[in-house]
């Protein structure tokens, strides 16, 4: 393997991992506060279709991204209303949201199928993009990928180093105690859900405006579910979410590249590789059960009623 090929693989790995990273970061914040939203796939698709329609109609890709985030927030608000406001079962509500989002996006987008769009083009950062191996991967991407780097840094800082991180964690670990301390549990949870919606919407926009600039029904093809699984297998730790997303991306790309080179491994086995590799690595990292339990939000998925 020559350097160029490795550099291309690393570049594709980041592109492939970015939508997973965006969704998983949003869901991580959401789950940290104790709310499990399985509606990621639906929010992502709705974001993708709204982003595409807006960008196509106005010619502004950024306006598309913005409204995609708002579209994600809109569906997330619906989830918050039902699951938090009415204390409905979060798993059922999230599943319903995914099914709703798939159908709604197909309905809204039916007139926009088969329309070509020039999406976000790679934006090379001078000098840095010439660094061998990692230059192409880190500094020759499109702006949404750079944005995902920035959001990752911001969320990592917020979760690990800021007071906000402690508030999120307190609400997720023990909402009653948090409430007794005077924290607005319901407001924190709602905002976390809306943030998750915005991130899923942005991931959708990444698909329809940068990764494959077009709208097609079901174009997320299960990425929302993979991101959900990543959060669990990363045992709710933000650095591992990044690792998992890129690992999944890397294995997905390797399985395609290996076939092109002519390495004869059964295709079905190769297709399993991204899932297996990601699970194995993250499980090995989390094999210390006691420490893993420390990171799992205790009240995850449990409805909470205020007024104690």
């Amino acid at each position, binding site marked *: 393997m020559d350097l*160029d*090929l490795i550099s*291309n*693989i690393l570049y*594709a790995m980041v*592109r*492939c991992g970015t*939508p997973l990273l965006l969704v998983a970061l949003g869901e991580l914040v959401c789950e940290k506060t104790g709310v499990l939203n399985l509606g990621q796939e639906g929010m992502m698709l709705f974001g993708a279709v709204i982003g595409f329609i807006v960008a196509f109609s106005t010619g502004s890709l950024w306006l598309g991204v913005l409204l995609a985030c708002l579209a994600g927030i809109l569906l997330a608000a619906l989830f918050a209303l039902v699951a938090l406001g009415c204390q409905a079962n979060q798993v059922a509500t999230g599943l319903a949201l995914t*099914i*709703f989002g*798939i*159908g709604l996006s*197909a*309905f809204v*987008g*039916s007139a926009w*199928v*088969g329309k*070509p769009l020039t999406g976000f083009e790679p934006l090379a950062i001078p000098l840095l993009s010439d660094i061998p191996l990692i230059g192409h991967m880190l500094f020759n991407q499109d702006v949404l990928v750079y944005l995902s780097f920035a959001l990752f840094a911001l969320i990592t800082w917020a979760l690990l180093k800021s007071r906000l991180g402690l508030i999120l964690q307190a609400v997720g670990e023990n909402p009653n105690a948090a409430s007794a301390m005077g924290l607005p549990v319901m407001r924190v949870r709602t905002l976390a859900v809306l943030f998750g919606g915005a991130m899923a919407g942005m991931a959708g926009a990444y*698909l329809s405006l940068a*990764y*494959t*600039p*077009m*709208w*097609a*029904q*079901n*174009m997320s*093809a299960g*990425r929302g579910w993979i991101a959900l699984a990543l959060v669990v297998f990363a045992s709710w730790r933000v650095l591992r979410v990044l690792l998992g997303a890129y690992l999944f991306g890397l294995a*997905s*790309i390797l399985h*395609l*590249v290996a*076939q*092109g*080179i*002519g390495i*004869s491994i*059964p*295709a*079905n086995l*190769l*297709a399993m590789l991204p899932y297996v590799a990601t699970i194995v690595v993250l499980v090995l990292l989390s094999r210390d059960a006691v420490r893993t339990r420390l990171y799992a939000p205790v009240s995850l998925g449990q409805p909470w009623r205020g007024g104690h």
Partner: protein
Amino acid sequence: MSIPSLKRLVLGVAAAIGLTATLGAHAADPLKVGFVYIGPIGDHGWTYQHEQGRQALIKQFGDKVQTSFVENVAEGADAERVIRNMAKGGYDLVFTTSFGYMNPTAKVAKQFPKATFEHATGYKQDKNLGTYLSTSYEGRYVGGFLAAKMTKSKKIGYIASFPIPEVIRDINAIQLALDKYNPGTEIKVVWVNSWFDPGKEADAANALIDQGVDVVFQHTDSPAPIQTAERRGVYAIGYASDMAHFGPKAVLTSIVNNWGPHYIRSTQAVIDGNWKSQDYWGGLAEGTIELPISPLVPAEVKTEAEQIIAGIKDGSFHPFAGPILDQKGDVRIAAGSVASNAELAGMNYYVKGISAQLPQ
């Protein structure tokens, strides 16, 4: 609730109503025609073209037919339920449009002998179950010819879905054209294990282009590989529908499936009461396949391509004319004969010249 599952519910209700409706049925009732789709009708590829066929059917027969479809139906148990619901719902004619619907369709056809079924791209027939396919290998051969003429790197890429005869046959057809028109050109095959995943299809196209491929074929249903080819400045051959507007500087031709004429013919036969189970193969000659050749192709190459097309149409040329050897060098189709439909339908070997191994 998603639109597909809403439709399933509607079909279920229709099934209940259908039982009472058949009691009072008379000749003026519209013929009920159902379609089962593997992807979304908005894939702008395989399923989109079947939906175009359904629209042609409505245009032709107006209120003499009543049609409906269920999209995004997974191959396997899910498909069986959907097909059975249609049969129960009093559908007279059901088209199932993906290879993996073969066994479910055959099973339901046995249970509902009064309904008529047609399954696309399969090989199981019954008294009330026919099969139909487009001989896309004809289009692939012409595509292979264009690729042979246009490639500079002598590397051609193929984004493949699943190792079934239809896909293997198409890869072989390209190899045969490459052998004849630009010997030594290599075809690289990447299996993505999906009919529809735009992101993965784009990744596969990128992986192939990174390895020096400069003409990309696809046997998947989204226009993502075309877009990728356009972006990266290489050529591509579209599949299922005309994908030229996704890559005006990339697409040399698209292998366009035109199902309308067949759907109209079969429906007419059912209305007239003379439908017979058959294995229908439609290609360039029947108009089931069309090949719009792009102005990107130089005039003399286009003329030669048109000669090949004319030869296929009048039967003077067949892409799988013997001798055809497999990878081991064994003769599979003898010199002087052409492959029979049965041989083509069961093709499970790569021809000589392909270096990759067929996935088991």
